[in-house]
Each structure stands twice: as structure tokens, then as C-alpha cells.
């Protein structure tokens, strides 16, 4: 049995401890906002926060997340109030297909926690998620807008 704290809720999971955190979140906990893209921590679609830092959940065994505070895209808004990054994303109409955006948003939230007013160079270094639709131009604008919000 592995105890996970996800978005403030406790989940006791009967699960192989080697199962990637991503699949525990998606299949056992049932939160599908965190996406599978590559399984090898390349694309960032599975990005979640572990104790506030962004991690790629496809590459972390669920056992390593036990006792840590996990936040997924579903846990970002406070009630009906969206996080400022989500609001900036809405204002800039960022997503196209949207599949990578959960991970992109989680990576950006973690960046802004570290660097509240990131430079373009900070963004380039921290945001390495793949987006095949190519939303980067809107992503950058929305990051700067969120930083000012």
C-alpha cells in the first residue's frame, strides 16, 4: 500500500511500487489532466509538482512520491478561481490541441515560484516541454503576463 497526497487529498493505493507516478495519477487516482507523451521524461506532458518543484511524473516510481505533496493540473485552481498562469493562458488563447498544456502550465507555475519575473533566458532554460502544435510564441507572452499579474 502506498499513500499519496495529491492536491491535498490522501490516496492509499494498492500498487506495484515501480509503477510510474504518472500512471498512478492517471489510472489509480483517476486524474487524467496529467498526460502521457513519451514515457522517457523527454516531452514534459506529464509534469506535476512534487513538494512544489516541477517533475516529470513518467520517470518517477510511485514509491518515490509517497509522503510527498503532489500537485497536478486539477489542483492548481483554488475552487473556481483559476491560478494566474491559467488566467494568462486564457487571456492569450494559448492552447491549440492542448494536450501538452497541462505539463506546460505546471512547468511555468514552478518557474514563477522560483523566479517571479523571469527573463526570456530564464524561460528558455526552464521550459523545455515539447509542443507539436507550436504554441511557444503565445506561451512566452502569457508567461510574462502571468509574472506581471
Amino acid at each position: 500500500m502506498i499513500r499519496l497526497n495529491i492536491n491535498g487529498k490522501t490516496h492509499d493505493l494498492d500498487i506495484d511500487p515501480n509503477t510510474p507516478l504518472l500512471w498512478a495519477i492517471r489510472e489509480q487516482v483517476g486524474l487524467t489532466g496529467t498526460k502521457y507523451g513519451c514515457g522517457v521524461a523527454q516531452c514534459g506532458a506529464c509534469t506535476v509538482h512534487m513538494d512544489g518543484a516541477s517533475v516529470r511524473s513518467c520517470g518517477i516510481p510511485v514509491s518515490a512520491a509517497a509522503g510527498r505533496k503532489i500537485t497536478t493540473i486539477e489542483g492548481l485552481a483554488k475552487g473556481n478561481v483559476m491560478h494566474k498562469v491559467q488566467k494568462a493562458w486564457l487571456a492569450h488563447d494559448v492552447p491549440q490541441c492542448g494536450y501538452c498544456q497541462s505539463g506546460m502550465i505546471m512547468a511555468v507555475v514552478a518557474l514563477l515560484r522560483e523566479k517571479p519575473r523571469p527573463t526570456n533566458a530564464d524561460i528558455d532554460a526552464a521550459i523545455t516541454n515539447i509542443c507539436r502544435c507550436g504554441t511557444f510564441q503565445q506561451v512566452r507572452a502569457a508567461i510574462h503576463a502571468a509574472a506581471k499579474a
Partner: protein
Amino acid sequence: MAFNPEMNRRSFIVGGAAVGGGLALGLQIPFGAAVARAADGSPEVGAWVVIRADDTVVIRIARSEMGQGTLTGLAQMVAEELECDWSRVRTEYPTPGQSVARKRVWGDFATVGSRGIRMSHDYVRKGGAAARMMLVQAAADAWKVPVSECSAVNSVITHKPSGRKTTYGKVAVAAAKLEVPKDVALKDPKDWKLIGKPVKRLDTIDKLTGKQVYGADLKLPGMLNAAIKDCPVFGGKLKSFDAAKAERMPGVKKIVRVGESAIAVVADTWWRAKTALDAIAIDWDGGENAKVSSASIAEILKEGLTAEQAFVHNQNGDSKAAIASAAKKIEAVYAYPFQNHATMEPMNATARYTASLCEVWCPTQNGEGALATTAAASGLPIEKCEVYKLHLGGGFGRRGAIHDYVRQAVLIAMELPGTPVKLLWTREEDMLHGRYHPVMQAKLTGALDASGNLTGLHIRLSGQSILAAVFPGALDKGKDPLTFQGFWPSGDQSFEYSIPNLLIEHAMRNTHVPPGFWRGVNINQNAIFLECFMDELADAAGQDALEFRRKLMANHPKSLAVLNAVAEKGDWGKPAPQGVHRGLAHFRAFGSYVAACAEISVSSGSKVKIHRIVAATDPGYAVNPAQIERQVSGSFVYGLSALFMQECTVKDGRMEQENFDTYNSMRIAQMPKVESIIAPSGGFWGGVGEPTICVAAPAVLNAFFRATGKRIRSVPLKNYGIELV
């Protein structure tokens, strides 16, 4: 009227409507004067519009949303004529099964070839206009006044003489009983209020909160999950396997042979299915194809460059004679590789099979195609099949013509009748079983006279035909006209230079690798071949690349206009900052005219920084400029990833690249600033999702030559040690 059970299912509420967050819409089909109603009971005013009592307007969209914004753009088209309150607009997908039952009332479902708007602009606007006429008529009938005295704006109908007002929601039921008018006039474009406005997308919020359900996210009661491995050698077979260990692994429900070539594990969770699949020892039989390599394919294509026989598609004058008598002859050979679409969401489909009904939930660019595949795979008549479309985590052409993943899901579900099974490919499976951008080589020969005029051009293409593999019925006496995209003598993919002696031909050389329609399709290589070679010719003639092109474009004013636009905004001909170099390209595709001017610098001879790209598009009419701008800037991510990073190489008959570590894609740090010029000149409808991709590579390659003196003639640039920084 007696209904059999299947007709009942179709005629009333579709079984799938209750699951997956109301993804599928239920419909009542009208018989006699009955009112057609949506799943929630709201009346349908014509096939395209449902009006709820609270004045919510639901617009039916037959095409698929995969990020390109078609839900929003098509809804704008309907709403423009409907005169409804845009803030109350919602969209929904009719199902392919309903389309069959209603004789394709929503037209074509295919969301390919940048055609969402350009092929349906007329009938979707008429759908909106017809609904408006019915609603206004219903109000006039209720008031017992002439309809000519009534008008509608923003979902409110007004009787001008009396000032009486009502709303669409209040008259919708009455309107739904009226006959749909056939004679429908459309607005003059100058009167458009919503078309042409950069309104926000209608489908954003759920993509920000994790609520959006993609195919991979679907949950159905009692659903099992499947992972699959198909023979990595295309055309090979599953010879034997040892599943003794896998059978005993936790959660495993069934191990299934899928057709001749694949094996799948069905388990309670996907991760357990995948883990068990990896524990199966599989013996594949690659057959003869296992001998094929990229090098052996390249040899076959090379032979085609000089082969005697080729399909001619565009010819005037005598290019061979012009070349023979040229003052200067220029020749170059270019090549383009296999590439994978690499949608962010790997292929997937969920199927539930019983002997009387086969249902599929899937992300698809063509719901009707998915339905046809469901029927073929299940062996059931099409009336006993249904497809529920889900949002796509990217399409780019992979989910359009070929529904191999649907076929597999159905075959697996048939082994577990009544149980829904979700099949999800690993990224590795997705990379190994793409429908790849076809390989092509091209030999281009140009003739210059003593004054540096281009007197003749010969383009010999040699390589793979998509149509021969995917739609052989579309071949023209063996010739694949689509291979010549951008090279046609006329039409919406026409060659945009006037050259006195011209010959463009194709030696078809097909391979065992399955080709597919990859965003942009054949313009990707054709634009590189032509637009890089035009620069080579300009250099050989000692002329400026822009001026050289302009002289050949007097008869192509729309192409010239977009080229001039990027040259002007891109500061062509003006001094560039130290170390910065520019390159141009333009092309005609999918009915639109596109051009780009790239500004780059190169350090250490191989590190390319793209500072900015000015891109111009003339799509005729720009329905939503904000979304066009996003398609344009996104096109550079797709096109430049392909140029710098992407190639699928064949070894022992199979692809070597299995994930993003060896098949990379651009990141934000590499993203140039894209300045879009949207210049709709009116009078035609061009596509937007694809055309711009093809000018990305040649504009950058032409700039790279100016920066380094090196002319690169094959893709990707990583093969030359060149990287995008």
C-alpha cells in the same frame, strides 16, 4: 412506424451520449412534422443549429478539432448568418452514424488538407442563415405579422413597426416545426460582423484545468486497457510468442493476437498491460522487407532521377532543348526523408463490441473514415456501428486517412464482447508505426541565357507516392497528381513562376514503408526543392534572389504580393545587423498564398539562431485572424523541427527512431519571433493549417547559404552537425 432496435438506438438517444461528459450528442430524427431534438430535448432548427430555451445556441461541427481552431472558425461562419449572441454559442459533434442515418446532412467529416473552412464555408453559412429564417418566421407567425417586418440581431427578433421583441430560445420549438428553406441568400462579405474578427477560441478553458477529455483519457464503466506491439518491420508478421510469464502478471485479463502481425495484452490498467506486454518474448518474421535500409531506398530513388520513364504533370515549351542551348546550366540534387507526425497524444481508440453493435470512441480527423474502419474490422454492417469523436491531442494528418489504431481496437474488443477496451500505443509503437512523410529526391536543372534570364527549368522528382499506397483509386492513369503539389499548371496548388520552357515530372518509386499525409503533405519537399534552387539560380545569374523571382512572377500577382510583403517587412535589401543574414521563400498551396523571410545568424559554422521570421498569408478570406496567426507561428515549429531535427531512418526494414530522444522537436528556446502578415485579398477561400509550413525550411536554408556559403540540399540538418539554438 415500427423501429427495429438499431433504428431505435439511432433515432432516440445514442447509447454513448451518457458517458464521457456528454461527448456524443443524441438526436431524434424527425419523422413527419415532429421536432428534431438534441439529447437534452432542445429543438433542432435545421441540421446545424440547436437552440435551448435559455437562448444557448449549439452549433454542430462535422470537422474535427485538433488544435487548429476549426470549432471556433466554423462556428463563427454559422453564427454570422444566424445572427445569434456569440457569447451564448456552444459546439457539438454530430456522430458519423447519425450522418449515415441522415444522408450526410452535415457533409464531409474529413478534417484534412486544410479544408475545414475552405470546403464548407458555403453550406455551413447557409445552415446558419436557414435557421435564422426559420426563427424569424416563427416569431412573425406568432405575432401574425409579415416576416418582412421582422429582423434578428444577437439572438433577439424584433418586429420593427410595433417594437415587439422575442428571443431565439422562445420561438425555437415553433421554428423547428417549419420546413428548412432551400433558397437561402448569404451576406455580402462587407456586411460580416463576426467573420474576420479575432474572437477567442471556444474550447480553451477545459484545456487549462485538466478537464478536457482526449481519446487517451476516456473512461467507460467496466473498461479494460490494452497495449500492443505490431511487427516492427512493415509488412512483417507475428511468428510466435511466449506469454507464459505475462499471463501470470497482475491485472492481465487476456493476451490477444491482433491480425497477422500484432500482439496485445488486455489488463485492468494500461500500465499493467504494457508491463506484461514487455515480458512477452516475441518472434517476428520480417520477411523480405527486413533487408531494406535507408541506403537501399536512397539508391532506388537515385535511379529514378535519371530513369527514362516518368509521369509528366506540368510542361510548356521545350525545357530539354533550352537546357541544351543554355549559356549556363545549373544542376542540383535535393532529398527529403521519412518523418513521423509525432502527435503529442499517441494513437489510441476505445472499442466495445457485441454481435449487434460495435462502438468506437476515438480521436480522429475523419469520423466517417473511423466508422468505415469500424464496420470493416468488426464485420458488422455500418448501421450497426457508431463512432464518437473525442478531441485530438494533435492530428497533423496522422489521424485522417488511416485508422489502423481503430482496426486494432475493434479486433481486440471482439475478443471480449460487451467489454469496452481502450487501446493506447506507447510512444515507441507510435514512432515505429507511423504513416510517414514520403521520401523524395529531386534533380533540378536550370538554363540561364547570357543575360541571366531563366529560360528553362526541369524538375525530376523521384520517390514515394502517398496516393498509390492510401487511395490508389485517386491515381490518374498511374500518376499521383498530389506528388506535384505546388507544381500544378493551374488550380489551388499551382506553380507560381512563368518560365518559357518547363518540365516537371515524377518517377514513382514506392517503398515498403507506409506513407501518409503529413501536415503540408508534398509541399514540404517541393518548396525546398524549388525555392532553394531558385536561390541557386539567382546566385548563378548574379542577381538578387528577390529581383530574380519577381521577374518570373508578373503573371502571379497574389504570390508576388505576399513575397513583396515579407520582403518589405523583413527589410530585404536593407543592411542587416552584423552577422545576420536573410532568406526568402514563397509557395502556393491549399488555395492560399504564403511567403516567409527568415533572419538568422550562424556561430561556429553550425549553430543557427533564427532571430525572426516574417510570414505572409493570403487565404482569400481570413475568418479568424488571431487563430490564423497561431497556425502560422505554430507552422514554423512544425516545419523547423522537421528541417533541423527529424528523420526516420530504416534499418533491417524497420524504423530506428523510437522516441523524442532520437526524434526531437523544437523547444521554446529555439523559437524565433514570428511576425505574421495576414493579407486576405478576397474572392476565394484558401486553407491555413498547412501552407505556411513549407516556406519555413527554404527561407532558413537560403539564409544559411548567405551566412556560410554552404548550400545544404537534404534534410534534416542534424545530419550535417548543424543545430538550432
